[in-house]
């Protein structure tokens, strides 16, 4: 999931208004931008949607890393289309967040100076072509787990953005799986690449769902507001249950010696990711945090003259059309 550890804000609002707001949510009504909403609801959503949007944008980098080295024209085209979709997701989500009274530029500045986060997963490097398969299969797969329920979230613009995004994400996941299939049916070197990609992306993918429920302080309020639909552990379990048979089908080994099917629960038992590593990644010490932020900052700084130039031109055009009236 692209939003992790979203701190929810307590609300200082009028208790009667709060109760009426909660009743609307409990009835399953959608909250729209012009409706009254508690300040905490608004702020938490900005943080959550903003983080999700930033993840789409930063997420272009690990895949962009292979666009210029894609092994065939068709793979190059598919990867370009995917990266373009992700940028589009970023755009829808920034638009959804803007309905809450914050601008895209403000959110961008907050990403660039570290006040806002993006998903920890994009701080891991993509080292071989098989990583393009693993990212689609596992990362888009984990994102879908989280985003499908969010199509029913209480905030209207967010729910509608999710509907559009989910369709494309499941397409990405199938394409990622297809890359893995080709590798697993290929040469020894390709199989080795595929296994290596799973080894490196398995635990970071499990981390995408955020800390274990017992350590997740902010879930209760967000779940009451229906901006978080399931707990972190529920989604993680669902992801493991879905993904393990897929790995078996590919002939790959999930890098968890303690992974076992539990007849009683009807779920897989699995090893939790290393939460100390997760906290380090969030603190800026993942393998690629500095590279990613440098790349985004450079793009933004080097693009300043373009944005300013186009704005200056638009202003001149407006002046001309006003003068003509």
């Amino acid at each position: 999931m692209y939003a992790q550890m979203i701190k929810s804000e307590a609300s200082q609002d009028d208790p009667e208004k709060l109760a009426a707001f909660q009743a609307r949510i409990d009835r399953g009504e959608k909250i729209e931008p012009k409706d009254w909403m508690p300040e905490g609801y608004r702020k938490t959503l900005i943080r959550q949607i903003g983080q999700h949007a930033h993840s789409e944008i930063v997420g272009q980098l690990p895949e962009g890393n292979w666009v210029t080295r894609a092994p065939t024209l068709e793979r190059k085209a598919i990867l370009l289309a995917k990266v373009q979709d992700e940028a589009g997701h970023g755009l829808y989500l920034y638009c959804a967040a803007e309905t809450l009274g914050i601008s895209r530029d403000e959110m961008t500045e907050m990403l660039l100076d570290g006040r806002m986060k993006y998903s920890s997963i994009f701080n891991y490097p993509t080292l071989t072509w098989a990583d393009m398969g693993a990212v689609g299969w596992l990362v888009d797969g984990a994102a879908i787990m989280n985003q499908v329920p969010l199509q029913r979230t209480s905030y209207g613009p967010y729910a509608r953005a999710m509907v559009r995004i989910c369709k494309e994400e499941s397409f990405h996941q199938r394409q990622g799986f297809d890359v893995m299939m080709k590798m697993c049916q290929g040469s020894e070197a390709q199989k080795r690449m595929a296994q290596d990609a799973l080894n490196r992306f398995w635990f970071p993918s499990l981390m995408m769902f955020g800390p274990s429920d017992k350590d997740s302080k902010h879930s209760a309020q967000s779940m009451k507001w229906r901006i978080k639909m399931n707990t972190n552990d529920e989604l993680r379990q669902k992801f493991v249950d879905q993904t393990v048979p897929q790995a078996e089908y590919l002939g790959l080994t999930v890098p968890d010696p303690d992974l076992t099917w539990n007849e009683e629960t009807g779920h897989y038992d699995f090893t939790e990711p290393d939460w100390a590593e997760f906290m380090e990644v969030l603190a800026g010490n993942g393998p690629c945090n500095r590279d990613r932020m440098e790349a985004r900052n450079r793009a933004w700084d080097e693009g300043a003259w373009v944005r300013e130039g186009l704005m200056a031109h638009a202003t001149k055009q407006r002046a001309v059309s006003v003068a003509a009236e």
Partner: protein
Amino acid sequence: MSDLVTYLTRLGDNTLVLGHRLSEWCGRGPALEEDIALANTALDLIGQTQMWLGYAAEAEAKGRTADDLAMGRDVWDFRNLLLLEQPNGDFGRTIMRSFLFDHWHLLMLRGLTQVSDARMAGIAAKAVKEVAYHADRSAELVVGLGDGTEESHRRMQDALDRLWPYVGEMFIGDEVDAATAAEFGAPVPDMLRAPWDDAVLPILAQATLTVPDGAFAHQGGKTGARHTEHLGHMLTTMQWLHRAYPGANW
């Protein structure tokens, strides 16, 4: 190589080389809308490459595929215009390069929709719609940035000055052009200069940019006689994976 194969290879190498160059921008554009547009244009061009080089490979009849041509040839076998292999530079140079090419490309494709070879005409008919959009978009950016701030104007003028010596090659015909013109009614490059000037010069004027003096034209891309040093580095990246694992299926 038959004239048809050479002709198709030139078309496909143009779209491949520019498509690749644009894909180098991935995730690094000056604004989200530009990231999307650059990826989209690159995607169109790679799609056109699949069609042109796919046809070239079939016409060649040596059992090669479009991928073999794209990933397996060395610099001297590439037949793209020198303009397109020039490095991206800043966003202004990237857009100027596209602008100069897009309007030539559009004229070329319009002509190709009329040729007697049905397959060539079919590919052109599909591509021409995409390229009409590329040409509109690059023109809009050239005007916006040329007539924007002092800095954006200076950068666009620099880009135009830097790339201008590569414009002429687009309009220099050779025996391959003459043969395909005679056989299929394909457009003759020399004849495209006047309509290109008609399309491009007013836009440059609107962008408040000064067209450089001088008609000097670097040549050697479309004939393959002498590429620039840049193409080899591009191919090193683009072809590395394909070449490192020969015969692999991806």
